[in-house]
């Protein structure tokens, strides 16, 4: 499994380079926005994959709660998977929030607007940072259960956030007219979109897998320490009983 991961690294690198070439040299220049529109290939890919990682984290959290009593060892790997996905999701979300203003400034003339997508992405970011904060502050031994509960609440909130912000903004339309990419797309644009999506998916999965293994290692070390502590107390008890 780990060897596969090291093969995955150059493959993802190659994909990223190919996606970059597609986006920068082969896809046609957009009529109104010019070259700045090319950030779209990254923005679109990363924004969509962010939801995938949060979704995987949600599923793994449910899995953790479902088997935490019946199969504690399996539950540990679910928890590691949930955490790894949430972390990659937060990183991707942060990338989206940084790319957005970079693109918006030259095109819309402003860094930020309280538009439906921008606002709901920001709230999503806040929710998952809260998830990571709880993991940091929770009392040892209860972290995983509490975090799984928050992940479920957070993901339930995602559609409500999205629709509420959307209604809010349809009631008060924002003055900004985004140069949407959905008008008369050149097929070469689609090629670049798909390659970049694949490349960033590969990259995110790889980050997630590395993080998953490192969390698993931490978990095993903690288990060994706990076991060693337990055995140490047993030794003391044994010596006491001998006396």
């Amino acid at each position, binding site marked *: 499994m780990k060897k596969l991961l090291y093969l995955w690294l150059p493959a993802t690198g190659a994909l990223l380079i190919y996606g970059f070439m597609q986006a920068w040299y082969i896809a046609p220049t957009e009529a109104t926005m010019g070259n700045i529109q090319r950030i779209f290939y990254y923005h679109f890919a990363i924004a969509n994959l962010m939801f995938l990682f949060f979704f995987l984290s949600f599923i793994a959290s449910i899995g953790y709660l479902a088997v935490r009593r019946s199969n504690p060892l399996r539950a540990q790997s679910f928890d590691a998977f949930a955490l790894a996905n949430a972390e990659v999701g937060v990183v991707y979300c942060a990338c989206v929030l940084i790319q957005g203003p970079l693109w918006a400034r030259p095109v819309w003339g402003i860094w930020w607007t309280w538009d439906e997508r921008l606002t709901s992405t920001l709230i999503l970011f806040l929710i998952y940072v809260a998830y990571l904060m709880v993991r940091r502050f929770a009392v040892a031994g209860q972290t995983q*259960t*509490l975090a*799984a509960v928050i992940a479920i*609440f957070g993901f339930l909130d995602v559609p409500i956030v999205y629709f509420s912000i959307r209604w809010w903004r349809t009631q008060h339309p924002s003055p900004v007219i985004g140069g949407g990419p959905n008008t008369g797309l050149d097929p070469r644009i689609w090629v670049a979109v798909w390659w970049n999506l694949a490349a960033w998916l590969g990259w995110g999965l790889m980050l997630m897998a590395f993080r998953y293994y490192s969390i698993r290692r931490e978990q095993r070390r903690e288990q060994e320490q706990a076991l060693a502590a337990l055995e140490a107390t047993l030794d003391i008890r044994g010596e006491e009983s001998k006396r």
Partner: protein
Amino acid sequence: MTALRQLAAHLRKDLLLEFRSRDAIIGMLFFALLVVVIFSLAFDPTMAQSRAISGGILWVALLFAAVIALNQAWARETRHNVLDSLRMSPASPALLFLAKALVNFLFVTVLELILAPLFIVFYNLHTLGESWKLLLILPLGTWALVTNGTFFAALSLRTRNRELILLLVLFPLSIPALLGAVLATTAVFTGQDSPDLWIKLLVVFDVIFTTAGLLLFDVVLSAE
């Protein structure tokens, strides 16, 4: 039937505690009053403006005040290990959660009843929309804050830095409910839009998170 009796027992205990100490209500009331006064000094609103902003100020004041009650709600159960004995009792944990949420709901409602006249005086309010809809918006919005707040207060008991964690988790998750409540209230005050869509949003939010809270409370209560 036993469920109702258990719920009544939980409710009676919490109400008795609050009736004897009055910690939560007095703390919340004074704090909310301070928030309202400070906001009106900070914004110095005229009548037309105050209609547009007072929905927001009302809900921010209620949110902050509710957090005070929520922080005390479970903390008082940790003294003398009451929470552990509640955990051991055969009564359903979901009922414990429901009773706690109902009591907090009652406290915040009392706060609203006292705060409302003051608010109208300070901000020179008279509503231009259908004011009876506030009777829907206020309970729905309050329940949205209180059900999530009660749940996360119980969760944050098990963290270092309990009071901070409650805020960090409750605020981002409640944003849609807060947005709905603020926009609905503002719509009633100004009479320009219909608040119906936001009332529906609040209903959906309440149903989803009350269900999630009832189902998952057991997990939080016995987390270890």
